[in-house]
């Protein structure tokens, strides 16, 4: 109630007038009432009433916050956070080595950034995650929906169909092996059409559309409360070309990062971004580093860099608050992201891709 007038979210012109008239605290405003206020400052009665309503709302919000209720600032002990984190699900990637170094998979409420050279598999991983987020809980998934924001146009529906079909078949295999009732029930709602209809796709052509879409995301997520994954494929693309003002770019990117963190926390969703690589020319050699500069590196909580080593694809966990840095190899088969087969397993006679589906899953079945 003792809040200063200058901190209230009123229009700046109104604030200036209130300051000029000598009002200092919110309590004074409320005591004066709308008619008195309109006469003193020279605004209409309706405007005065509106301003007072805003003030009242703010003060109520303040009171609730100081009383320790839930609001924009959440307080909880580390123990509560630990319990929350342990019950939280992960979004698996079907490549058990990758899941292991990530600590179980892509975490909810965190921003994960995937960087890599073109063609290494970033969009494939995003499509795999968009399918995997929908795996029902009895199979070890999160049972959520996915929002896919595409800025580069590399989303291929046919590929998602392949990945989804492989995922559904995998779940069928598990259900047959374990013969449990809830598995069968879950499978009824887990078909190809269901998976595809729960991937919400937005195609943003430039950074303005991307900004607009991110502003509208909280509303969209409140309507579709089952969304657990937001993928932005190609956050670097609209910001890299045609941008003369680098400080504006940094400001926009920071604003974007903050909004994504709020979205991730409020709606318990995982945010996955893909970034491009750029060459940093040093004294004697040039190295590939993630694009968008150093300040963007602070935006993501977990950073995964995908790169080539001759003809083997590798994934390196570059930044993570809870896991250590490590590198693993992975494969992209016609069924999606998979582990690399150790050489002991025999290949199929036609020399086609080995069937790695059984191997990554055995650890999960034991659970």
């Amino acid at each position, binding site marked *: 109630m003792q809040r200063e007038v200058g901190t209230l979210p009123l*229009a700046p012109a109104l604030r200036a007038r209130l300051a000029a008239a000598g009002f200092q605290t919110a309590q004074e405003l409320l005591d004066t009432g709308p008619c008195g206020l309109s006469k003193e400052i020279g605004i209409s009665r309706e405007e005065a009433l509106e301003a007072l309503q805003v003030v009242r709302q703010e003060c109520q919000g303040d009171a609730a916050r100081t009383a320790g209720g839930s609001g924009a600032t959440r307080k909880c002990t580390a123990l509560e956070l630990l319990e929350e984190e342990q019950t939280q699900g992960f979004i698996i990637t079907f490549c058990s080595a990758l899941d292991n170094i990530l600590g179980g998979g892509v975490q909810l409420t965190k921003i994960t950034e995937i960087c890599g050279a073109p063609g290494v598999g970033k969009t494939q991983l995003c499509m795999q995650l968009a399918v995997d987020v929908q795996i029902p809980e009895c199979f070890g998934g999160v049972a959520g929906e996915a929002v896919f924001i595409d800025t580069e146009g590399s989303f291929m529906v046919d590929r998602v169909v392949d990945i989804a079909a492989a995922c559904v078949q995998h779940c069928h295999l598990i259900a047959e092996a374990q013969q449990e009732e809830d598995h069968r029930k879950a499978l009824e709602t887990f078909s190809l059409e269901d998976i595809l209809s*729960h991937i919400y796709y*937005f195609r943003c052509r430039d950074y303005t559309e991307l900004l607009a879409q991110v502003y509208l995301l909280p509303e969209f997520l409140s309507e579709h409360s089952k969304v657990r994954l937001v993928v932005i494929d190609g956050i670097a693309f609209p910001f890299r070309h045609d941008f003369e003002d680098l400080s504006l770019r940094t400001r926009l990117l920071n604003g974007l990062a903050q909004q994504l963190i709020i979205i991730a926390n409020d709606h318990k969703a995982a945010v996955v971004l893909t970034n491009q690589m750029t060459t940093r020319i040093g004294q004697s050699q040039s190295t590939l580093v993630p694009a968008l500069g150093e300040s963007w590196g602070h935006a993501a909580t977990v950073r995964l860099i995908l790169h080539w080593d001759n003809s083997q694809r590798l994934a390196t966990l570059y930044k993570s608050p809870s896991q250590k840095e490590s590198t693993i190899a992975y494969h992209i088969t016609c069924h999606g992201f998979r582990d690399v087969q150790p050489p002991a397993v025999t290949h199929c006679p036609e020399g086609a891709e080995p069937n790695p589906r059984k191997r990554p899953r055995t650890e999960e079945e034991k659970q």
Partner: protein
Amino acid sequence: MAAKKLRRAQLSQEMCERLSRYQITTCQDFLCLSLLELMKVTGQSYYEVQKLLCKVSRACAPTMQTAYEMKLRKSVNPSSAFLSTTLHSLDRVLHGGVPCGSLTEITSPPGCGKTQFCIMLSVLATLPVSMGGLDAAVIYIDTESAFSAERLIEIAANRFPAYFDSDEKLLCMTRSIHLYRELTCCSVLKRIMSLEEEIISKKVKLIIIDSVASVVRKEFDTKLQGNLAERSNFLTRGASVLKYLAEEFSIPV
């Protein structure tokens, strides 16, 4: 979409006038400002500004489609999803052929047959749909002056003798292949920008650019300092326009 004027975003007249005094006329300008700046510029309270932001965002945000709708749209018209190259093993690897609606890049060392492949694709595109073509015109942007019309007719006559049995048909086919010779980066970019109207007026369903690298390498020497940024600028701008054309008209590029 970004350059959409605020007037059309359903903001009130006086608000638009007020914003134009600060030179904010398009959605892009509006969304680039932070909340505090917006409050100062519009003279509205915090909550009002958030509502305005939502309104403007809704005006230029993309529409949502589920992956299922996309798949249905593709399966309704399977022949329009790909341009078959008539090389069966290549079609199998590409899952049907050159995909419509996205960019496909063909690279190789010199002399392997890129231009020949492009010429063959042009012939294929002019064939009627029943023979696996697109029954439409082709825009061919040639930067190396490597396109030979005689070779075009030779390919057409030998590959599809049954179809191109008369000179009439050959002439008709050649008339629907529009060739543009561009020799500098600027002219290539200008030509790409002007393609939208041509695609609609001439009913084009295939765009071929042969080749991007030659004109870029001629003009930009990567050893010079400033050129790298300019070159990538040119390339990304061209790429985004081409992607837009490919997606908008659902044609292969």
